């Protein structure tokens, strides 16, 4: 069965304290892995797509990496405005399966 598991469920960091979020997946025929940011009461905002193991993408303080079984979202020197829920999703055929997300909180 296709499955996506994100950890930790919640993460509190001090401003400037770097860390990583994990997304483990089991899927038959991975077509792509996606990272989204979601602010409270809003729809997810697209961040990255990764297609194959070894691929990396960067955007400002965020870097996403992909292996055959998991993906990491690394956040470097985060700021309070990076506080949000980060969702990982995988595409199997035409269906996208989401994890439950990691709630990230950055304290000033």
């Amino acid at each position, binding site marked *: 069965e296709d499955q996506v598991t994100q950890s930790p469920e919640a993460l509190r960091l001090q401003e400037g304290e770097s860390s990583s979020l994990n997304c483990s997946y089991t899927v038959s025929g991975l077509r792509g892995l996606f990272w989204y940011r979601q602010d409270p*009461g809003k729809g*997810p905002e697209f961040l990255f797509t990764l297609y194959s193991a070894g691929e990396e993408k960067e955007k400002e303080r965020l870097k996403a990496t992909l292996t055959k079984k998991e993906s990491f979202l690394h956040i470097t020197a985060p700021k309070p405005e990076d506080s949000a829920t980060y969702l990982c999703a995988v595409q199997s055929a035409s*269906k996208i399966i989401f994890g439950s997300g990691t709630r990230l909180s950055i304290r000033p």
Partner: protein
Amino acid sequence: DAGVTQSPTHLIKTRGQQVTLRCSPKSGHDTVSWYQQALGQGPQFIFQYYEEEERQRGNFPDRFSGHQFPNYSSELNVNALLLGDSALYLCASSISDSGAEKAFFGQGTRLTVV
């Protein structure tokens, strides 16, 4: 360029009633997917529409139905509402047959069933 728009933004319905939610996709997109997101959870796939046909469906009962119009806009209908149907309903649009599709989401409709 307007992104994905959903209406209404908030809705309160009584148990047993029926509801219709609406979605206009991003310009140039022909595929619309609907998701249900309970509080503290990730979005759960309901179904996807392409060329006015339901192409894929998640594990949701037949009370959940949809429609896609020739202009690619879409509706989600839920019959016989239950308290457990209270959630944020998200619409996502994408371009079909583009490999790993990158979905753009609307702001969602917050449905509360009382």
